[in-house]
C-alpha cells in the first residue's frame, strides 16, 4: 500500500485546487472564525460598543447565573422549543402521510403548506400581528365576534403568548418538515410493504415497523434543525409582541433568549453581556443537538 504523498508532490498535484479554495477559506476565516473568536473574547469583557472593551473574566457569566430575566427567557424558550418542535414534527409527518402521492391535488396541497416556509418571515409576522390585532379590527376577534364572543386581548394576555408563538411557528414550519418527510417516504422501497402485507401486517403495524424506523434519519434532521431554529426565535417576538419600551411583551411573557440578547446588546449597550448570552445559547444548542444525534444513533442500534 502506498504511503501518504510528500508535501511537495501533494502541492504539485493539488496546488490548483487549494488555490481555488483560498477565496472561500479567506471569507470563512474573516466572517466566521474571526468573529467567533472575537465574540468569545467579548463575552469575558465589559463592552459598550463605543469605548474599548474592559476584560472582566467570568463576570458576565456570573451575572447571567443570577439574572432573573435571563432565567425567565430561558424557561419561556424551553417551553416554546419543546412544544413547537414536537408539534411541528408530528404535523409534518401527518401532512406528509396525507399528501404523499404525485397526484395534482396532493401537489397543490403540499405547495400550499410549504408556502409559509418561502415567504418573508417579516411579512408573515406582520400578518399574524394583524390577525391577532385587538378589537374588531383584527381577523381573529372579528371571527370571535361573529360567533357571538367578546374580543380577546390576544397579545396582552400573558398566558396566551407562548401558545401563540408556538402556533405561529408550527404553522410556518410544518410545510418544510412535510417536504422532507415526503422525500423520506419516497425513498422507502415498496417491496417492504408488499412483504409485510403478505405476512398479514396491518396498516398501523406497517407504519410502526417500516415507515417510522426508516424515516429516522429524516426525523433526526427535522428535530435537530427545528430545535436550532426554535431556540433562535426572534422576529416573532420582536415584531408581534414588542411594546413601547419592552421587547418581551406584557410581563415579559413572550421574552425569549435571542430577543433578550438583542435587548441587552443593542438597546442597553451591554455587548459583552450579549456575547455571553450568545455563547450560553450556543452551548445549550450544541449539547442538545449532540444528545439528539446520540439518541437517534442509539435507537438505530436497537
Amino acid at each position, binding site marked *: 500500500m502506498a504511503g501518504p504523498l510528500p508535501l511537495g508532490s501533494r502541492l504539485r498535484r493539488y496546488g490548483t485546487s487549494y488555490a481555488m479554495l483560498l477565496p472561500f477559506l479567506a471569507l470563512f476565516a474573516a*466572517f*466566521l472564525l*474571526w*468573529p*467567533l473568536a*472575537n*465574540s468569545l*473574547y*467579548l463575552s469575558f469583557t465589559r*463592552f*459598550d*460598543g*463605543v*469605548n*474599548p*472593551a474592559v476584560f472582566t473574566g467570568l463576570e458576565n457569566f456570573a451575572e447571567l447565573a443570577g439574572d432573573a430575566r435571563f432565567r425567565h427567557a430561558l424557561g419561556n424558550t424551553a417551553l416554546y422549543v419543546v412544544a413547537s418542535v414536537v408539534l411541528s414534527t408530528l404535523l409534518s409527518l401527518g401532512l406528509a402521510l396525507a399528501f404523499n402521492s404525485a397526484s395534482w391535488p396532493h401537489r397543490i396541497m403540499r405547495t400550499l403548506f410549504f408556502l409559509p416556509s418561502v415567504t418573508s418571515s417579516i411579512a408573515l409576522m406582520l400578518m399574524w400581528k394583524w390577525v391577532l*390585532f*385587538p*378589537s*374588531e*379590527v383584527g381577523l381573529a376577534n372579528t371571527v370571535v365576534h361573529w360567533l357571538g364572543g367578546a*374580543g380577546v*386581548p*390576544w*397579545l*396582552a*394576555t*400573558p398566558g396566551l403568548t407562548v401558545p401563540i408563538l408556538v402556533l405561529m411557528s408550527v404553522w410556518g414550519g410544518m410545510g418544510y418538515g412535510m417536504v422532507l418527510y415526503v422525500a423520506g417516504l419516497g425513498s422507502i422501497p415498496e417491496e417492504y410493504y408488499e412483504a409485510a402485507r403478505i405476512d398479514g401486517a396491518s396498516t398501523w403495524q406497517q407504519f410502526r415497523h417500516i415507515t417510522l424506523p426508516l424515516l429516522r434519519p429524516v426525523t433526526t434532521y427535522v428535530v*435537530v*434543525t427545528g430545535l*436550532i431554529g426554535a431556540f*433562535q426565535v426572534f422576529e416573532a417576538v420582536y415584531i408581534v409582541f414588542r*411594546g*413601547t*419600551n*419592552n*421587547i*418581551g411583551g*406584557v*410581563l*415579559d411573557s413572550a421574552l425569549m433568549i*435571542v430577543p433578550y*440578547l*438583542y*435587548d441587552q*446588546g*443593542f*438597546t*442597553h*449597550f451591554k*455587548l459583552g453581556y*450579549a*456575547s455571553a448570552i*450568545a*455563547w450560553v*445559547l*450556543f452551548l445549550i*444548542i*450544541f449539547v442538545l*443537538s449532540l444528545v439528539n444525534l446520540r439518541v437517534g444513533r442509539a435507537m438505530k442500534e436497537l
Partner: protein
Amino acid sequence: MRRTPAACCTILVAALSAACATSGQKQTQQADQNAPMTLSFWSTGGDDETATFQKAADLYHQKHPNVTVKVQTLSWDDAYAKLLAAATSRTGPDILSGGMTWTIQFGARGAMVDLREHGIDALKGQAQPAQWESAVSPDGSVYGVPLDMSTMTLYYRTDLLKEAGLDGPPTTWQELVDDIGKLKAAGVKKPYSQDWGNLDWIGYFNYLYQAGGAFYTPDCKPSLNTPQAERALTYWVDLYRKHGAPTATVEGSDALDTGTAMVVAGNWIAKGIDANKPKLKGKWAMAALPAGPAGPTTFIGGRAIGVTSYSKYARTGADFVRFMYSDEAIAAVADEARKRNISYIPPRPDKIVGGSTFTPEQAQVFAQAISTGKAAPGCPGWDESASDVAKQLQSAILGKSDVRTALTEAAKVMQRNAG
C-alpha cells in the same frame, strides 16, 4: 451542526465588528469649515418627516452655499441599533435625531459632541423647560436638544358623549370616572381606552405627575415609594379593573372608529383621523387630559437632535442644529409637513400655535398640554429600569400583585440601577 456556530455568528456580527473598529478616540480632527462640505443627517422617523427636515436643510444651504445637508430616514424600529453601529465604527452621520434620551446615552459613551462647546445651550430659553431638562445629561452636558415635541391628549367622540347626556369632555379624574359610568349607562360598550403607553410606564406617567408624584426626585433619587405614586397607580389600575379599559392596545383612530368614546393618544394621530376614518368626520374632538389632584401634568416626548463626535464638521453641524430653532426653519418644516398632512410640533412653545401643522383649535389644546408638560426622566439608571418598572405596573393591572408591592419592587429596581 455547522448551522449552529454560523447562526450565533450572525447574531454577534455587529458586536464583533465593533471590536476591531473601536479606537477609543473621542474627537475627530476637524475639516476646514469654509471648504465645500456635505453633512449627513440621519433622521429617525418616516420618509415624510425626512422630507420636511430636508426643506430646512435646503434653506440652510441657501444661506451657506458651501454646506449641503443630506437628510436620510432611519425607521424607528432599527434606528437605535444602526446608530449604535455607527457610533461603534465612528463612520456614521454628522447629525442624528432620535428618541429624547438617546443622545444622552450615546453622549455618555463619547459618541456625541457636547453642544455647550458651540454655544447651543443659548437655545435653552427658547425650548420647553421640562423637555430641555430631559434632553440634558445628569452632569449638565448637552449632547442633544429637542428637535420637535409630542404630547398626549384626550380624543373623544362628540356624538357618543352627547347621547350619554354629557356636555363636554371630563376635566378632572373624578369627572372621568363619572363620565365612564354615564357612558356605560347609555349603552356605550367601550367608554375609555388608552392608545400610547397602555400597560406601560408612559401611560402611568400622566397619572403619576397629576397626583403630585414623580419617578425621581430633582436630584435623581428614585421616588416611586410615595403615597402620590400609590394614589396614581390605584386610580390607573381601577380604570382597567373597575371601569373596563382594555389591556390590549388599539390605535387611537381605530378605537374611536370602533365605538370607543374616549381615547388617550398621541398628537400624531390627529392629522390622520379625518383622512383615514371619513365616517368620524365631525364626530370627534380633542381636549387636554383630565387633571389629577395635583394638576393637569401631561407627558411630553419628541426627538432630540445632536452632532456626532466623529463628525469632521462638528461646528457646522452645531450651527445647523441652532438653525433648526430659527423662525424660518420652523416655518419651512411646518409648511412641508402641512403639505404632507403629517404631525409636527416645533421645539419652541411660542411656535406651537402657528408653527405646528394643526388647526388653531387643536394647536391650542396641544399648547395647553405642553405648558404643563413633564418629560421622561434623564436620571442615571432609568433606561435600564424602564422595562422592569413597566412589568411591575403590568402586574398590578393584571392582578398579579397589589399596588404597594408593585411600586416597592419598581423602586427597588430603580434604586439598584441608579448605582
